[in-house]
């Protein structure tokens, strides 16, 4: 590798543009101290009319989804590294000391707590009565939803150097799917942990351990029964979620998970280029270079736009078909790096500074 071109490190400046749509803030509220330099990524969780959120100092909140009014909050005096996951009965949190904590949805009181082998850095989830979570040492755990007892765990072979963070598991019925730091995606039977199928998304290449990083740190995206997963310095791939048969694969690199709608898959790709690929053939449809090196959050599909937030806390909307900038507003001064939730056309964002806000599209006059 005789020379790599001069890599310019500073995030690209934002240019102005003619907005095509307006973003209206329904409500915003502050969730404790937010996150810290330990690079955790907190995602809010929605069930019914309540939205739950947590901060790094262990303060758990439940707000009304429509008005943002606080219903209850509880103080766990310990550091929290991941949350909020939902199971049938409980809220699920992960801690830096490697614990999975289940809290009651009504008042946040603790139901059970289990110690795993390493810190939990992505939100646990659950299905069919089994709670699943990935830990920093490359393992996926299956716990009994009632008692929290460890039913099974799978251990992946870890490369010497990985990217910070792990992909959160994705569940569908009796199947749990997760991406690992070795660039592979595995699907397991959620009850027994037996591998249903496994696929390699990226092949490590290059001489130094840096060039050989192929983490899948973004949570894979399930659209219907198609699963999209993207790795760092590797590929974006689409599989059938049941059998894991690869449909197509495209060169791509992203540290965040993909998002998809019925026709296209969107990622915050290499150098934070926002890219769209056809979900049927994988051919790249468009690529937006306005937000280079702005450490983008995972994209989210909102109406006919793709939403993505950056390190300075700006929320950008790009036109789904053309990739052209459509709207921009400021959401959380400390930036946004976690996944954003979309539920019946309302976008819920939990920023790194702890700002939880809900947004809706409003057409220009």
């Amino acid at each position, binding site marked *: *590798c*005789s*020379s*790599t071109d001069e*890599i310019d*490190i500073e995030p690209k400046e934002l240019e102005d543009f003619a907005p095509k749509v307006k973003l209206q803030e329904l409500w915003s509220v502050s969730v404790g101290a937010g996150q810290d*330099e*330990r*690079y955790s990524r907190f995602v809010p969780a929605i069930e019914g009319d309540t939205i739950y959120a947590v901060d790094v100092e262990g303060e758990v909140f439940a707000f009304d989804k429509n008005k943002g009014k606080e219903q209850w909050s509880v103080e766990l005096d310990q550091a929290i590294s991941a949350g909020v996951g939902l199971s049938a009965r409980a809220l699920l949190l992960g801690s*830096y*000391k*490697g614990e999975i904590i289940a809290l009651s949805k009504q008042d946040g009181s603790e139901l059970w707590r289990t*110690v795993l*082998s*390493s*810190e939990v850095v992505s939100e646990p989830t659950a299905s069919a009565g089994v709670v699943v979570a990935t830990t*920093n*040492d*490359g393992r996926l755990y299956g716990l009994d939803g009632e008692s929290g007892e460890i039913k099974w765990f799978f251990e992946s072979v*870890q490369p*010497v*150097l*990985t*990217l*910070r*963070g792990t992909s959160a598991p994705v569940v569908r019925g009796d199947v749990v799917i997760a991406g690992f730091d070795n660039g592979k995606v595995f699907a397991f039977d959620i009850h027994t942990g037996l591998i249903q199928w496994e696929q390699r998304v990226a092949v490590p290449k290059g*001489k*130094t*351990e*840096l060039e050989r*990083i192929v983490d899948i740190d973004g949570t894979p995206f399930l659209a219907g029964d198609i699963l999209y997963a993207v790795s*760092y310095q590797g590929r974006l791939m689409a599989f059938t979620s049941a059998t894991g048969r690869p449909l197509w694969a495209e060169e791509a690199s992203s*540290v965040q998970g993909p998002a998809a709608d019925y026709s296209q898959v969107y990622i915050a790709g290499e150098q934070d280029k926002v890219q769209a690929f056809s979900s049927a053939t994988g051919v790249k449809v468009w690529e937006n270079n306005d937000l280079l090196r702005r*450490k983008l959050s995972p994209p989210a599909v909102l109406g006919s736009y793709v939403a993505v937030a950056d390190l300075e806390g700006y929320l950008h909307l790009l036109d789904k078909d053309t990739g052209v900038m459509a709207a921009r507003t400021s959401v959380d001064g400390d930036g946004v790096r976690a996944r954003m939730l979309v539920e019946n056309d309302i976008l819920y964002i939990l920023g790194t500074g702890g700002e939880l806000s809900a947004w809706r599209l409003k057409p220009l006059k």
Partner: protein
Amino acid sequence: ESFRVTDIRVDGLQRVSAGSVFAALPVRIGDYMDTVEIQDASRALFTTGYFSDIEIGRDEGVLVITVTERPAISEIVLEGNKAIKTEDLMKGLQDNGLSEGQIFKRVTLEGLGSELQRQYVAQGRYSASVKTEVIDLPRNQVKLQITIDEGSVASIEHINLVGNTSFSDEDLLELFELRTTGWLSWITSDNKYAREKLTGDIERLESFYMDRGYLKFTMPSTQVSVSPDKESVYITINIAEGEVFKVGKVELAGDPVLPEDQIRRLVLMREGQTFSQVLMTTTSDYITKRLGNEGYTFAEVKGIPEVNAETGLVDITFFIDPGKRAYVRRVEFRGNTKTKDEVLRREMRQMESASAASIAIENSKVRLERLGFFKEVVVETKEVPGTSDQVDVEYTVEEQPSGSIGASVGFAQGTGLVLGANIQQNNWLGTGKRVGFSVNTSQYQQVYSFNYTDPYFTVDGVSRGFSVFYRATDFSKINVASYSTNTYGANLNFGYPISEVERIGFGIGYTNMLIETGSSAVQEIKRSPNLYEGLAPRYITESNLAILTGLVDQAGLNPGIGPAPDLDFSELLDSPENTLNNPDGFIDANGDQFDSFPFTLSWAKSTLNRGQLATRGASQNLSLEFSVPGSDMEFYKLRYSGQYFQPVYKDFTLRFRADLGYADAYGNTNGLPFFEHFYSGGFGSVRGFKRNTLGPRSTPAASYRTVTIGAQDSNSDGKYDTFDTGYLLCETSKDVIYKTGAEVCLQDKAVAQVFGSDDLPFGGNVLIEGSIELLFPLPFIEDQRMLQTAFFIDSGNVFNTECGFYQQNCFDVDLSRMSASYGIGLTWISGFGPLTFSLSRPFQYNPEDEIETFQFSLGTAF
């Protein structure tokens, strides 16, 4: 078709010599060549890597080889490298055959570029990039341009310990060399990730747990992850502590050679005690050392723990394998290019052709270091080839200047300009003998002295030395009472060891001393005031003097009226013999010429680890000097000085020093001679004060005040021109402080005028000094062995058991009167001898002490 080679000609050679081409060619003159062999030949030449193009042709029988050489490298330019020094890079290049004047090979350059990249990544510089360019130059030469952008080293954002229940994160992270970014990180750069440091930290963590009984402690996995922008590193260490194990039975197995109880005494682990790995390994070391002392240098001792999970106990068996009894065949020395072999060999406690004793080998190393001739001593035992039980012991030394040598034109505080040559060499011509001679002329002193000591007069270390000296001193010049002494003398001394670390010594000498006192000699030396010779003692009171001066003035007012009448006020006089009854000075009592025969007895014990700039151990010496009865001066001086080093933390050491002295006269000498007084202040005693200025002051000289008590007008011009003088009598006494210019007036005693120079330090017969120093290594200095820096607190003073009535600053022994200062000092062993600086601030001192914040001196180590 093949043909016979009659000659071989090589064309196009530039840098490469024909010899190396012929050496590479698989064909010789006289062989048969065909196309296949031609291919072999060209392939052989290609593999040399020297040539970019080879053609082999034929000119009848002559094999013609035309080559074009690969370009030679004329210059290599390296830019942008900071973390890896240019020399290391150049050396790396040289090792792979890429250096100026060499043949340039592109493949090695490529390989090297990625090798450099790999090195940077290994150092945690993840965003580094290496660019190599080859620029062609005329005359088939190339220039290599390597530009490096090192990027910044990833700094550690977070170290997370998972699974530590018995110890807090803080306690455990304290063991780590790697730290998250703290406010000191910009100097220590402890927040920079490096894999070796992490492995070191993990080992320390493991032994921390093993030392506290967590025998089943394991670390299932450790993750190092990096942020996408490659600037921060996150380290997660997952621990499974397991429970604490207690010691069960302790067994000895194998051949303990020594009786079991002797070995048992060295076992540090007791039943029921929490298991500790460090105690186990230390026990094995002690037993191995003990066997080493018995001659079994090849002994091996291993402690094997057997864990019993149910009982939570661990039984330990020490397997002792003494190996064969070892013998030392030869003891060899390397590096002593100036010091004689015997000087090192006589310090040896390990003999040749004798059984090896590890403690003897180690002691010999310490004895060599204690000589002070070597900066460093390294000992190595090598097995003698062909034998399984013989070793050679090799001591490698690095010599250092051991004394101060050379003419010293210098300036030192207190002594002014010092001219002259002085050589004090403790390793004279490498013979280990201490020789010193000095010719020193300075403002206050002319010194000619010669001293010679042979530390090994006998093979057991009986030392014999002698010295002769002549010294003329003018004390007034170095802030000591105004007199000067001219002494000469000689001294013979012997000393010998009474144990491995203790020596006693004794010496007999002769000194002749002559004291000259100036007119303004202080009262303690020569009594003053004295009545003038030849002046009859007549006194006048102050009031009568007032009347008399009035008459004299009046007479002088109108000169023209004829001769002024003679004034004679004898009836006003008062003639009692009235002088200040000042005590006798030393000279008055004892005269000024002394012959004495000082006899000295000394005891010294030193366990210091190094001859100069020691950092461990302690040293004390006690000496008694007394003049043999019958000498003119009969006095004794007892002197103790000791120092002790206590290592405190890493390479910080505390040094405690004490100096005590008591001296007094005996027999018919009634007071300790003033020239034998102790002095204090300045270097080597209490820094921050001028040299020798602490303690009692002398009383300046004084003389009686003479006034006119009669007047005559001899030439009858109406003005008095001859006067009679007498002494003034004091009527009401004033306070008595002997200060220059002051008047000392005691009721109905003659008034004395103080004229000697102000009160000068005079020393005393009791010396008490002590200091505490914190030795610390100077940052950024590699070679610490020649340099010692320290924060210090010095305190000390000189007292006098009998103070003169008028002496200032003179107290009997009273610790609240100690003067003290704190500051920082530095000693550097230079080629010319120890160079010392100190910056100090007194925080407790007596009114008369003279302060001096910056001091330096050449030749005396404090």
